[in-house]
């Protein structure tokens, strides 16, 4: 296994506030890596910085050997990295189908595109049923599925997921996590940000615990589940 994504001493500022205070972590090819932590710990900021929506102050983000910190956000997706942002941020006024097409914005081959849409429909049959529906009318769980399907349309080698379980019913949460495992099995590397630490640790290979802009703990996901302070702070035991 090789390091696919490698973050070294990353610092990010929001105005005067230092949101990320020098974190380092890596994701190996084929892994599911979870980034857990409380609200405001810097999880979302970390993902936003990786895909260029927020500029890094210093440090490096290396993806498959290429430095990302100086690359504009709109060029990241064609490099093989797809980001499902927090709150899903699907295009509410477009149809489900047009949302999926937006996900493949940088791709040109029409035949490959058709295959990708088929693959997405296989993961999320409900999207096919609702393909002509305006996306804003979908339920929260369906919108999450659409956001993930849209991200898969670019055929990413790594998928960054930000709080996929947020605001969903327990049934949907299980379904979404099941699909994340499926996506991972089909060969896509996953970096997963979650507040639902229990669920995240249950499917992840490794995990990092983020606390106010620093990495407090890291290790094998199964071991972290047994860690006392993790249990107390994040698993509610």
């Amino acid at each position, binding site marked *: 296994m090789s390091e696919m994504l490698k973050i070294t001493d990353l610092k990010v500022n929001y105005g005067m506030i230092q949101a990320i205070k020098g974190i380092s972590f890596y994701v190996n090819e084929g892994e599911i890596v979870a980034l857990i932590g409380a609200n405001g710990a810097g999880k979302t900021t970390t993902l936003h910085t990786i*895909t*260029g*929506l927020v500029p890094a102050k210093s440090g490096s983000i290396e993806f498959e050997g290429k430095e990302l910190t100086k690359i*504009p*956000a*709109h*060029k*990241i*997706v*064609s490099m093989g990295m*797809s*980001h499902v*942002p927090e*709150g899903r*941020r*699907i*295009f*509410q*006024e*477009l149809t489900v189908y*047009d949302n999926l*097409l*937006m*996900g493949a*914005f*940088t791709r040109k081959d029409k035949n490959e595109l058709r295959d990708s849409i088929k693959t997405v429909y296989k993961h999320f049959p409900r999207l096919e049923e609702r393909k002509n529906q305006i996306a804003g009318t979908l339920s929260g769980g369906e919108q999450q599925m659409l956001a993930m399907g*849209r991200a898969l349309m*670019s055929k990413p080698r790594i998928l960054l997921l930000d709080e996929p379980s947020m605001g969903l019913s327990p049934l949907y949460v299980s379904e979404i996590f099941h699909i994340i495992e499926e996506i991972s099995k089909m060969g896509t590397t996953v970096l997963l940000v979650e507040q639902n630490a229990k669920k995240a640790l249950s499917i992840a290979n490794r995990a990092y615990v983020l606390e106010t802009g620093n990495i407090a703990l890291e290790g094998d996901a199964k071991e972290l589940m047994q860690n006392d302070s993790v249990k107390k702070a994040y698993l509610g035991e």
Partner: protein
Amino acid sequence: MQMLISTIIDGLNLGSVYALVALGYSMVYGIAKMLNFAHGDVIMVGIYAIFVCLQMSSLPVWITAIVCVAVCALLGFTVEKLAYKPLRDSTPLSVLITAIGVSYLLQNVALLIFKSDRKFLQKFIDLGSVSIGDIEIPKISFVIWGTTLVIMIGLDIFIKNTKMGRAMLAVSEDKGAAQLMGVNVNSTISLTFVIGSALAGVAAILYAAKYKNVDPYTGSVFGIKAFAAAVFGGIGSIPGALIGGFTLGLIEALTIGFLPDTLTAASDGVAYALLIIMLILKPSGLLGKKKIEKV
């Protein structure tokens, strides 16, 4: 009766041009989230471009028309690049004030070059008129209506069915998410300005063909009224621009046609009265969407 019909025809002419200009305001607002108050002045520059072409003797009309649209599109592109793009991340207020500044700049440059007296373009497109019964309809009216309709439908198809169009919709909804899809937000905004300004160019042609005069303030007065039409119809909405434009055009023509002469000067006020009423009753405009600000 005859008077009423010819007034309505006048209103539809005026409304068509308003609609095209309102569309430019709406598109730019929808995608760049800014009010380009210099949009009306782009029309003025376009009409002066036609004026200059007419001075250069025997250019065919279609070349003059292309020159006008090209000048406007290029002007829109340049203004966006020099004045608005550097302010992309600053507050809406600074962009708004910059737009007002650009508006004055264009007016004053026109004043410098062409002086303040009104120029006439009698030679530009004279098609005569057709008579239906007692009513005489200038042929140019059909050109105006046809052009407006074709442009509206074409633009709607472009936005809904092409990749660039979808990208524009995506940017108008969520710039960040659009970037994650690989959309270059800056070039999408530039493209929007070019299209909006080209529409202003078309409006300039129609205006020149119908009203045949221009001074440095033609565009700004006309532009503000078209802006009122855009807000009336629901800013950001294409059919809204169409409805807003025609409503305003008809009401203005009817006021001029039927109010006593001493009051026709008030016809400009009608646009603003309409705007105020709409803002009180339905702030998002006739077809505007109510936006819920998300945190």
